């Protein structure tokens, strides 16, 4: 009797704590979405407006489709630019991630089956990710300027490829480790070359793992800020940079517009993240924690 009662109490406490945190985690996201539907009179209203009334699509129309009628006003920012940078982000993130996963998985196969990198080297590879980019970003920008990579797709793709490689190798390796060797040995006895074994046997076997790795790295690349800020000038701005242009360029804050832009660049990320939610632990721990 007392035991079951104690259990009921502890269950109630658990739900209360979890629900409280769920509110903390979700409220800022709700606020962002709500603000994106507010007319400009409600952006800073006192008391704050919790439910946009009436909800409006103006912010989205203005930000994403450049429908700003009164171009002279302070928040007429370059029309349609966000769509272009959305495209840029999509191209840069998918290309660099695809290359990293492709190359990374081949390295991972080599490490898993033939130890082409010792454990020490595998950890040294992590340095590419762990050293903060700020310490090399100044010479990098000068070097890029010298070789003409500043403000190009190739420049950003190259640097994102290098910084996501450690994740790609470690994460795909944890998937390849789970594939029994007998399968590929059978293929090799039947005369398949090593490369054919990799691309036609091993990688197809871990394809869900490859997709998870791809999406995982996509999340990190999509939201990268510092390197994009330094390396891009005007031509190939990515979405986080585009968003930061709405700040400081005007005297008044344009919360509604910022929110509409934020929603547009965050929702794809959340969908991707929720798709691979089961694999996030593996990704963030460099494949050390499996689940």
């Amino acid at each position, binding site marked *: 009797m007392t035991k079951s009662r104690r259990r009921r109490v502890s269950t109630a406490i658990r739900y209360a704590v979890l629900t409280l945190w769920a509110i903390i985690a979700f409220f800022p996201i709700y606020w962002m979405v709500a603000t994106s539907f507010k007319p400009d009179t409600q952006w*800073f209203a006192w008391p704050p407006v919790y439910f946009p009334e009436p909800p409006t699509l103006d912010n989205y129309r203005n930000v994403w489709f450049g429908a700003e009628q009164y171009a002279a006003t302070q928040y007429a920012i370059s029309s349609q630019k966000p769509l272009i940078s959305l495209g840029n982000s999509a191209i840069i993130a998918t290309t660099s991630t695809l290359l990293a996963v492709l190359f990374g998985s081949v390295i991972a196969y080599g490490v898993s089956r*033939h130890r082409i990198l010792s454990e020490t080297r595998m*950890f040294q590879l992590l340095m590419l990710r762990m050293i903060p980019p700020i*310490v*090399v970003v*100044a010479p990098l920008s*000068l070097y890029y300027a010298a070789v003409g990579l500043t403000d190009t797709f190739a420049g950003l793709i190259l640097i994102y490829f290098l910084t996501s490689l450690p994740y790609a190798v470690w994460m795909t390796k944890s998937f390849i480790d789970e594939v029994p060797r007998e399968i590929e040995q059978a293929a090799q006895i039947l005369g398949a070359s090593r490369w054919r074994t990799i691309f036609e046997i091993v990688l197809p076997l871990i394809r869900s793992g490859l997709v998870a790795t791809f999406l995982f790295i996509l999340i990190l690349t999509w939201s990268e800020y510092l390197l994009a800020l330094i390396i891009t000038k005007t031509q190939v701005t990515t979405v986080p940079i585009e968003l930061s242009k709405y700040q400081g360029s005007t005297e008044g804050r344009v919360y509604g517009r910022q929110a509409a832009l934020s929603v547009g660049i965050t929702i794809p990320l959340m969908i991707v*993240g929720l798709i691979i939610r089961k694999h996030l632990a593996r990704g*963030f*721990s460099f494949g050390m924690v499996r689940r």
Partner: protein
Amino acid sequence: MALMAANAAPASTRELSRRRAVRRFKWSILAPLIALIALVLLPVLFLQLYFSFHQWTVYLGSWSEAEFVGLDLFTEVLTDPRFGWAVVRSLAFATGSTIGCFVFGFALAYLMHKPFRGQAVYYAIFILPMLTVPVVVAYTGEMLLYQSGPINDLVTRLSGIEFKPAWLTNPNIALPTVMLLEIWNWTPFPFIIMLAGLAAVPREPLEAAEILGASRWRIFWEVQLPLLRPVIFLALVLRFLEAMAEFPKTWALLQGGPGTATETLPIYIFLTTWQYFEVSKGAAMSYIVMLLMIVIVLVAIRLLRREKRALDAMYGGGAT
């Protein structure tokens, strides 16, 4: 192996050609990787070294005109009190937010590690902050925290006491505010790692302890926690390194201000190089920070390697 022992002579030539094939395979993968890293990293490291020893300003035409100044720039950086404070702030920020993230993340993971109704929904909501672009976190943070914004309003209404801290403009609390945003943003990280870790704890010792009548507190403290040590290290180390490098939120929100209240190392390096255009000083600073970070990362890697072995043993052996 068995084949080799049974039939030594022909097997060894086969083994030799197999080994040669593996070596060829190895270098056909590693050569492009090494070439690429060398092509990008070597010039960058060279430039950084060059600028650390040569005073160069934007007024000079080409790099080669920069004047050799020996260790002057390093002396300048190391005697710059602003740099010292930036180091202190970075360490404080990283330590504080790491502990914050970990405590909340671990507590949530512990509450959730046994199946219950609604678990999947809670999990999905809890990982959302991590899936928000850091710059978006910064701007949304501003919308929430300005002085007559919703957070102050909600706290005032719920508590009935006037609550109006100037989160972003009071220099005394600006850094903790960024820390708060960092904690909101990254609590999901230790959460998912600890959840996976808790799920992987072997059942037998727990059941044994329960049968022996140990209290839940003792089971947690003396059985689960020691078994979780590798995962805890992993979460703390990775989070600390990421927090040391935090730039987007701090920059987008406050640019190091008010005053120098949120001027962490990444911010100070950025300001020196791109606002004051002291490229050489920035390079010397980067160099010092890079060395500092390499030391921290090497220690971290040592820890991670040790803990990875323990993890591999626990999961019943990874391949390497």
